[in-house]
């Protein structure tokens, strides 16, 4: 099983996929961006967030 999947992955990588490592430097995982995001969340989080989440009750559906 392990051999099979490794073979597939290396084959795919040769064809067209960017190396996985490229994702690790994408903005989504950049620490500075995360800090900016946390600052923004402090601004947009409901001011009464704790009460909002406590009173959030839905009826079951489907």
């Amino acid at each position, binding site marked *: *099983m392990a051999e*099979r*999947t490794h073979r*597939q*992955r290396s084959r*795919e990588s040769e064809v*067209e*996929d*960017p190396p*996985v*490592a490229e*994702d*690790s430097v*994408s*903005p*989504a*995982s950049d620490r500075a*961006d*995360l800090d900016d*995001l*946390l600052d*923004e*969340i402090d601004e*947009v*989080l*409901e001011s009464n*967030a*704790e009460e*909002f*989440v*406590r*009173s*959030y*009750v*839905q*009826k*079951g*559906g*489907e």
Partner: protein
Amino acid sequence: MAIPKVCGLETEFGIVVLGAENNPVAASGLLINSYLADIGRSAGFDTSTESPRRDARMIHEPSVLDPDPELDLVPVNTMLTNGARYYVDHAHPEMSTPEVRTALEAVRWDRAGEEILRRSMRAAKGSLPEGAEIIVHKNNSDGKGNSYGCHENYLVSRDVPFGHIIRGITAHFVSRQVFCGAGKVGCEAVGADSDAVAFQISQRADFFEEEVGLETTVRRPIVNTRDEPHCDPDRYRRLHVIAGDANMSETATFLKVATTAMILAAIEDGLSAGIPLLVDPVRAIRAISHDPTLSATVETSDGDHLTALELQWRLLDVARTWFERHGGEAVGTDVATMALSEWEQVLAGLETHPESMADRVDWVAKQRLTVAYAERHGLSPVAPRIRAIDLQYHDLRPERCLADRVGLRRLISDSEVNSAVSDPPETTRAYFRGRCLQKYANSVVAANWDSIVFDVGADPLRRVAMAEPLRGTAELLANVLEQSPTAAELVRRLGR
């Protein structure tokens, strides 16, 4: 030979009213009626032919719950010009996308549905007291044990015994959450402490109690047996999937639909023998969800213990074999190529560097946010403010939505979403439904998934049946619609 995987999504949205009475049934009706008034139309929807309790296993199973007469009323129920159905279901606003031909189209009309909900929230403000508002969340649980669904539908051949579908698809429904789980703070499994799991992969996994069954509101099954095809029942089934989360990430929705469509096509083409059978799917779906380190293993009937990613590599292998032998036409060849590549990248990313998937996997994006926020403010991982981040990730108000702020990759442009708010897909019968509602709204008495009823004047009402999901496309009918100034002329040209 696999048949085209015509598909669609149905999403029930969470709803609350701030600053006025919080009655979810009334608020859902107000939301939809405000939208219809805003766009200047309303249209009937004929549910007389619906039979949601028909069972694919050919057995009759009475509901364990008597229908609640108040909640069973359908106060608002309409077909839109984009071919979608917008209605109140139980105590939630629900949007069913039009039938589409590919996973990429499913993403586009799913996003259009979100945009319609946003426009509805804005329109409803005019009907509410000053300062009051209706807030809609695209999520699946309130964190207190109440769940509502995001369902998928796939056209499958009636020729394939339902047991083959169950055996082939269960491992996928159990393990696909690694890329399409929406993430959840806390635990809602019956009998478990709400803090027993700090963060889990899926919104829905806690609510599944059966492997196979007809119910959708209680004792929820991983494979739902509702047998209501809304098309020719001799040729088709509509596989009604309830074991999924509503996604904010377009990639997650895309992969959820594309991978499922490919596995179903592989089952139809007799290639499902390589898919492992699980000893206890109900336990497995929870065990996987409750372990965001992705190291939990589940037991197969061969005695193997596999992680969700190992199951997914095997399922990817089955889909690749299907693609190589049969081509990808059943799901759209370009979409299949794109999906196989993306599926492989996501599994590899989750295996080697999970956080790198924060731009396309909802649970990873949400977990990254909640962990960092708890760390910065010295909070418990299940603190009320962390639960609030979980909830607000799904808030559809642009000024509040956290999913909009985490850098999720887009597959569909804003202009494609906006045009899909009013226009139907061209590749299924939804084209005919939507164009008729655009052009002959005053002559449409009722519109359903598989028929439209016209009032053409002095004659009796004319019902145009649409039993074939792939007829009524732009390719087949654009000219006829173009050349028919009135519904009467349209009906005449269609030869009825």
